[in-house]
């Protein structure tokens, strides 16, 4: 009896072992639903290039966008933050971007010499020297100060940047109506983001909707923007000038020190050896 009981337990443990092995294998193994492997559909890439080239051909443009962006709280709750963005660009060195949103109203102005940011609620402003073109200014702001302008991809691509080289997988999904306009729905996968683009059909292939999914966060939060374009209204020069409002206080843009107290604490490994 006793031996039989032991045997039963051994079988149960064996099954547990198999389950654990399977779990471990499943965790380590690549996702099987991607087993077919990435495939870059040349038609989707051609549509992306068409939209890119069209945006680059515009001497100036204005757009407004309704944006939602997930903020992850409590580890896995996705709060959807809402904002409205208005952008005006004149090639190659003028840009104004206004953000009205849950996380504060912001103004960004680039006049060819300086990039200024104004934070309405806090009444802080930043004015710093900027490179001679908007493209270089976008790069410098992102790399030096982790400062990302609203709808950064639109600005980046319109000013000559490209997103094609980061694409690992691309597909043309089909037609889709966005705000009453017939669009072509495209899907792309990159290293840390999956993204979707809805490009207006016809002679003005403009992006009308963008969805970006952050894939290196377990909850996969999303960014979503719907865009309306104005290619004809003239943009007065004073839109590209920034004067700090009365009482506004200057601050620095920067990257915060990461855990300074710990960085400077000696690591146990590095302790000098006693002879």
């Amino acid at each position: 009896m006793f031996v039989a009981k032991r045997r039963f337990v051994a079988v149960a443990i064996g099954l547990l072992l198999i389950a654990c092995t399977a779990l471990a294998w499943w965790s380590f193994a690549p996702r099987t639903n991607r087993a077919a492997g990435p495939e870059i559909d040349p038609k989707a890439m051609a549509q992306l290039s068409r939209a890119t080239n069209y945006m680059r051909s515009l001497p100036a443009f204005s757009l407004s966008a309704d944006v939602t962006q997930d903020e992850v709280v409590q580890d896995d709750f996705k709060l959807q933050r809402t904002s409205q963005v208005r952008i005006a660009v004149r090639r190659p060195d003028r840009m104004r971007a206004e953000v009205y949103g849950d996380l504060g109203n912001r103004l960004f102005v680039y006049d060819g010499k300086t990039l200024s940011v104004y934070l309405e609620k806090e009444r802080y402003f930043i004015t710093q020297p900027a490179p001679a073109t908007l493209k270089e200014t976008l790069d410098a702001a992102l790399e030096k100060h982790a400062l990302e302008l609203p709808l950064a991809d639109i600005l980046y691509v319109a000013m000559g940047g490209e997103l094609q080289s980061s694409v690992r997988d691309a597909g043309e999904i089909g037609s889709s109506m966005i705000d009453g306009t017939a669009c072509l729905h495209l899907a792309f996968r990159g290293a840390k983001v999956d993204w979707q683009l809805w490009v207006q059909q016809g002679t003005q292939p403009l992006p009308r909707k963008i969805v970006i999914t952050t894939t290196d966060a377990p909850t996969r939060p999303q960014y979503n923007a719907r865009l309306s374009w104005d290619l004809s209204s003239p943009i007065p020069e004073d839109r590209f000038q920034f004067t700090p409002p009365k009482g506004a206080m200057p601050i620095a843009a920067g990257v915060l020190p990461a855990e300074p107290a710990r960085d400077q604490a000696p690591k146990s490994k590095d302790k000098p050896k006693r002879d």
Partner: protein
Amino acid sequence: MARVKRSISRSLFEVPVFVALLMCALSPEAPSEAQARGRGGGRNLARGSVHGANVSRDANRNTNVNRNVNVNQNVNVNRNVNVHGGGYYGGPCCGYDRWGHPVATAVAVTATAVAVGTIVASLPPQCTATVVGNVTYQNCGGTYYQPIYQGNTVQYVVVNRP
């Protein structure tokens, strides 16, 4: 004979238990949300651009513009306002409450000073702004905070008296 049987059954019992426990211990945990943080200042926001993801210099890998901050290891850190617990970005560790509101910073008690280099998402009440050399500082009961704009939010770094 019975003794041999018993030892076999014992090994049948013990070996799988050991291996099973080992395999379970080796199963990788899900990647932590914190691994993907570092965007949008202290907030844990979805990435807002494809290009930004490609460039992807997550905040904690960046060099610090505030290099002259003097970290005094001897200063007694007020744990209530110290945001260095599990990385300064995102989550309740980092100056935001469970619904994303900035946590009100406690005013340092006389006995405990706030360590220079401490980063908070909001200021304690009753601060006075002063501009020194084109940089704004907030004096909150003798502790000086320097506002810094990063990602898309303002955070405050405790600095020495300017």
